[in-house]
């Protein structure tokens, strides 16, 4: 493949798909999904709302209100599909781009913005949402997900973990170690790889010579590739993998085949390394448009419904923006807080000296 050829445009044959880009429902021999009309509309609403949050965050960054933002544009179905497959007892371990999964776990979007605004490094209680903190060092969280799953085994609990990571992360030692550990301990974990084709500027062929889902077989557990822009297929495949894990059948690697429609982050310029044709081709596979077409064709929703969701999205965008701007800057004392759980004499001393020093300016 030459470096200029559009990537990932022709869907590979192994892909699990239940909804075509044109919004046609198709059957798959191994995976099926039964959803009420209300559930389908709810998935559509999720997709639209998280895209709107993402759009608002990009705008906030462009206006100088966030230091940086990692957009999920194009990956909404992979995140909502997998996120909605989780039960309350399951535990998710995200990267820094899982805004859609955070939405499914009821994490206030403004909490996510706080991290990118520089107010704190995360700041939600993972146990409250069963959604771990964003992890920025690539792949590190996959080992945490496996360790947590080993804890679930020891508790005898009916639960599983899901570890999110990208195509670039599959080259990391930690991800490969996590595959080994999950395999030999038969840990209840689902590895959910969003292959969005690009690790900043590096295309997939810089990471792997074989399709990513095939890596699993070398570690001794199943791998499956799903259409990452098909929310039905992502939900069905993840649900089954999680259930297998909870039932003691061990890990599964899911490769959600998708596309990063935006830049890696707001600091990135993808025009330097990828061709416009690729983006145009993937626009035709948009996760929201195909579900909208399905809803229309099957008369599951009318224009009034779509208008209502759009209005809700706009209101959400405004609300997120307002509350982001209202986030208070932390006080200097916050520098010293929460570094240790127990008292730490050195830190106490440094804090007291520095606050006394600062107080000298206030006289």
């Amino acid at each position: 493949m030459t470096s200029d050829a559009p990537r990932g445009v022709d869907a590979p044959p192994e892909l699990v798909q239940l909804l075509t880009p044109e919004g046609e429902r198709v059957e798959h021999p191994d995976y099926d999904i039964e959803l009420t009309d209300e559930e389908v509309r709810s998935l559509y609403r999720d997709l639209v709302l998280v895209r709107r949050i993402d759009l608002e965050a990009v705008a906030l960054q462009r206006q100088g209100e966030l230091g940086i933002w990692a957009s999920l544009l194009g990956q909404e179905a992979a995140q909502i599909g997998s996120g909605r497959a989780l039960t309350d007892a399951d535990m998710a371990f995200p990267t820094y781009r899982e805004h859609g999964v955070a939405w499914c776990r009821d994490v206030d979007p403004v909490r996510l913005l706080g991290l990118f605004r520089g107010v704190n490094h995360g700041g939600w209680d993972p146990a409250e949402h069963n959604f771990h903190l964003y992890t920025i060092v690539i792949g590190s969280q996959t080992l945490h997900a496996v360790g947590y799953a080993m804890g679930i085994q020891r508790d005898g609990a009916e639960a599983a973990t899901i570890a999110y990571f990208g195509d670039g992360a599959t080259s990391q030692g930690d991800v490969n170690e996590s595959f080994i550990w999950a395999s030999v301990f038969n840990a209840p974990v689902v590895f959910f790889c969003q292959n969005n084709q690009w690790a900043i500027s590096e295309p997939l062929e810089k990471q792997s010579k074989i399709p990513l889902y095939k890596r699993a077989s070398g570690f001794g557990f199943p791998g499956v590739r799903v259409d990452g822009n098909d929310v039905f297929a992502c939900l069905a495949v993840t649900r089954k993998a999680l259930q297998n894990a909870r039932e003691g059948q061990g890990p599964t690697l899911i490769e959600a085949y998708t596309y990063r429609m935006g830049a890696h982050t707001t600091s990135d310029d993808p025009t330097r390394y990828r061709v416009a044709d690729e983006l145009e081709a993937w626009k035709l596979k948009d996760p929201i448009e195909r579900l909208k077409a399905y809803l229309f064709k099957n008369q599951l929703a009318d224009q009034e419904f779509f208008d209502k969701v759009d209005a809700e999205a706009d209101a959400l965008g405004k609300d997120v923006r307002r509350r982001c701007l209202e986030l208070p800057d932390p006080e200097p004392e916050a520098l010293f807080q929460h570094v240790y759980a127990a008292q730490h004499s050195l830190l106490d001393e440094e804090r007291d000296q520095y606050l006394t020093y600062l107080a000298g300016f206030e006289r």
Partner: protein
Amino acid sequence: MTTLTLAKALNEGLRRSMEDDSKVLVMGEDVGKLGGVFRVTDGLQKDFGEDRVIDTPLAESGIIGTAIGLALRGYRPVCEIQFDGFVFPAVNQIITQLAKMPLRSLGALKLPVVVRIPCGGGIGAVEHHSESPEAYFTHTAGLRVVACSNPADGYSMIQEAIRADDPIIFFEPKRRYWDKSEVDLTATGLPLDQARVARPGADITLLAYGPMVKTCLEAAAAAAEDGRDIEVIDLRSLNPLDMGVVAESVKRTGRCVVVHEAPVFTGFGAELAARITEQCFYHLESPVLRVGGFSTPYPPSRLEEYYLPDLDRVLDAVDRAFTY
């Protein structure tokens, strides 16, 4: 009182912790059936089972990364890194995750993970089996770093470390594993972050931790024959540092030598020298001197006697301190 080796005292401490709290797990390479290459975990798997004493795959980052996950689920993992020089594959997990997660969660998360590392040289080993990497960890906020020097401390410090809610790097001086002393198995010992006066003295203060405490005590005994009264302080905790005990001693003696196996250049002794200079300036009769490893990689074993601080090099520094 019972006479135990350091390895056995640590083993008893681990056993006591596992009996007291069912959430305590031991994990690492060869810690199960074999009982660890130094036998510190000997017999624990037999008594507590494979779910609590886990023979892990041979992957240090995996050990720490999965221990973090287990801690997030409410467990208290005690990880064994087989040798000091093998901790480096795990350093990413230790520094970017283990040390940072409580702050990242604004205090919602606690990570009670103990990372046990046999450290230091003097056992005639091949490369990577004799290192003293403590300064990498004392330089990392979010970690507590301690080093035991004797069986009684080993027994109490490992239990305190396991009870603590912060991640702790726990150094064990491997060449002292077979040293014996009296251990009171009913004693609780000093709090984990307190230094201990290992030998009181009036003329000069020696500061040491881990394997060098014994070396300093031997130097002090030799110097006593020449009429020089040396105080030896076992720091026990490197982060936080118990400067109260250190400053009280140095203000009294007016002289101080720091001894560690790690290279002197930007080693832990540099921090001690700077703090003592600041806090004891008007009491000092001589500059704080340092004895330690050279600015070389740890040497082949047939050279290590020249590299490691010994009684003579310590006493040479003591003599130099009295020339000012």
